[in-house]
């Protein structure tokens, strides 16, 4: 097990190098001059100040050299300083809790609703419930993300007043429920369909006959036997979407004014604040990879036939 984890961690090194390089290159390729953007519209910095700033942020050097400087800092655990002189790690530390709360809330909503609906639909394959659920998922897939976000904000937040409209003043859970629900909504269709398919595949399995022959109550058969087996493929998707829920909050945080990581990245891009964008994105990549590793470990626990270490 330890050997497996170490092998996986070593395997992550090239992935981290590749993704950070990609992010770095993408930011480098952004049009416009970050120093001029820093000065603000219409203002001109003196050439000596501008040169000093360029040198400080290594902007006078070629891409490879800039990337090298950045990597060097990353290895020392230093995310660097942004163009406004703030520690990127301090920015992240401030924004992180909001994103984590939002992402985990969304993920929990998605998991509970998605698996429940998928199970109900699968157990009633071909019935009305099944049809309604399947049609519902198709509709959700067809509607753009931000439309639902704005409609939910106006309808449930402004008109009905059930939820705070934006910001995080009311704390968890009140301020997070609505944005989390919207975020969750878009992970639900895939989860429902996967759970449903998996339930249908398992509900006629031989061990279900055994469970019936033992005289177990229907609920126990569904939850303990059918669902438990059906969850094996669902967990991997659930894990990947945990990464997505935590790292994919840019738009939602923007719409609902939540000062999380997505918000920081969003501002970083619009202000051409390269170090912020690169720093936060690299961190999100790392989080995503770690979650993936965790998922594979849980996978092994769920299905004892999958042996992680390659031996029994």
């Amino acid at each position, binding site marked *: 097990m330890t050997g497996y984890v170490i092998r996986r961690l070593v395997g992550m090194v090239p992935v981290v190098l590749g993704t950070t390089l990609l992010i770095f290159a993408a930011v480098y390729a952004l049009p416009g001059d970050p120093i001029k953007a820093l000065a603000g519209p219409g203002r001109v910095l003196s050439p000596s100040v501008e040169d000093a700033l360029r040198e400080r942020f290594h902007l006078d050097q070629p891409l490879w050299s800039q990337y090298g400087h950045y990597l060097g800092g990353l290895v020392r655990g230093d995310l660097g300083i942004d163009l406004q002189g703030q520690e990127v790690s301090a920015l992240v530390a401030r924004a992180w809790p909001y994103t984590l709360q939002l992402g985990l809330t969304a993920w929990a909503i998605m998991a509970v609703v998605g698996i429940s609906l998928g199970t109900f639909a699968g157990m009633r394959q071909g019935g009305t419930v099944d049809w309604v659920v399947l049609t519902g998922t198709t509709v959700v897939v067809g509607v753009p993300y931000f439309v639902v976000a704005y409609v939910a904000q106006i309808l449930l937040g402004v008109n009905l007043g059930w939820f705070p409209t934006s910001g995080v003043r009311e704390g968890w859970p009140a301020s997070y429920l609505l944005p989390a629900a919207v975020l969750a909504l878009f992970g639900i269709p895939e989860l429902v369909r996967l759970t449903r398919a998996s339930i249908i595949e398992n509900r006629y399995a*031989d061990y279900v006959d*055994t469970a019936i022959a*033992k005289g177990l109550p229907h609920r126990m058969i569904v939850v303990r036997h059918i669902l438990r087996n059906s969850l094996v493929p669902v967990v991997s998707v659930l894990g990947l979407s945990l990464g997505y829920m935590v790292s994919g909050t840019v738009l939602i945080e923007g719409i609902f004014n939540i000062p999380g990581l997505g918000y920081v990245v969003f501002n970083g891009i619009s202000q051409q604040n390269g170090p912020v964008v690169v720093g936060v994105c690299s961190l999100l990549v790392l989080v995503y990879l770690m979650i993936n590793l965790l998922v594979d470990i849980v996978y092994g626990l769920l299905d004892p036939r999958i042996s992680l270490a390659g031996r029994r």
Partner: protein
Amino acid sequence: MTTLLEVSDLTVEFRTARGWGVAVDGVDLSLAPGRTLAVLGESGSGKSATARAIMGVLPATVGRVGRGRVLLDGQDLLRLPPQERRAVRGARVGMVFQDALSALNPVLPVGYQIGEGCRVHLGMSRRAARRRALELLDLVGIPDARRRIDDYPHQFSGGMRQRVMIATALAADPEILIADEPTTALDVTVQAQILQLLATLQADRQMSLMLITHDLGVVAGMADDILVMYAGRVVEQGPADDVFERPTHPYTRALLDSICTADRKGQPLRVISGQPPDLGNLPSGCAFRTRCTQAADVCRTLPPATAVSPVHQAACHFAGGAA
């Protein structure tokens, strides 16, 4: 002879491309307390479908009971409300399936799977059920049960897995055990051990055992009574000694003839010529007539169950010696 389980006129239908086809047609059988009934027949003869219908585990959506009664102590299981039927399953009638690898849940430890029945039917706590599972694992001959109780089905060998399967069926101490080809998926050497185990359990607990098999060799040593099925119908039934001594239906005789024994060494194997008939397209009258060496015109009509002796019947026009 008192009867514990009495099945009468049981008909099971399966969905086919041409509508519902009859897989089991008017089967009557009875199971006495503490006796072993062997149900014999080849693939597709309806013996498994009969067992599944008794147990209420016909494949959902494709199988159904057409008509008939399954009386347990005089109570018709087929007409019980679902909750009461559930209370019978596992508690009074246990079932051992053919392939323990697929019949056991792959993701749950065997101890848990055995204990479930105790918890549901005997109201045991988790801990008590675990203790009982351990006893049962010992009882069915799993060596070092204490160490293996948390293992998963795939960690056992085929024979050991079938022992676990038997332990799950015994969890709530049923009066009747239905074993559906319990040794078919096993090595020949292991088959004998499993049969021996079933015979011992049956004798020790005074259970009624309904043993479904296509293997006459399996039946010979164990059965008190024999029921032979062909194409969904009972063709012969009676005490094992009587049936072995005076096999009356031509199909039973052909089956007994096809056993290979040491004294026939060197001779060609005797087989029953032809193929089992297609259930959707059975011959009229006696379904065996197309493969029967004795077939005559009279066989185009359905043969009645004819008494060979007061306890031995065969469904053949020639059973009485007349006709």
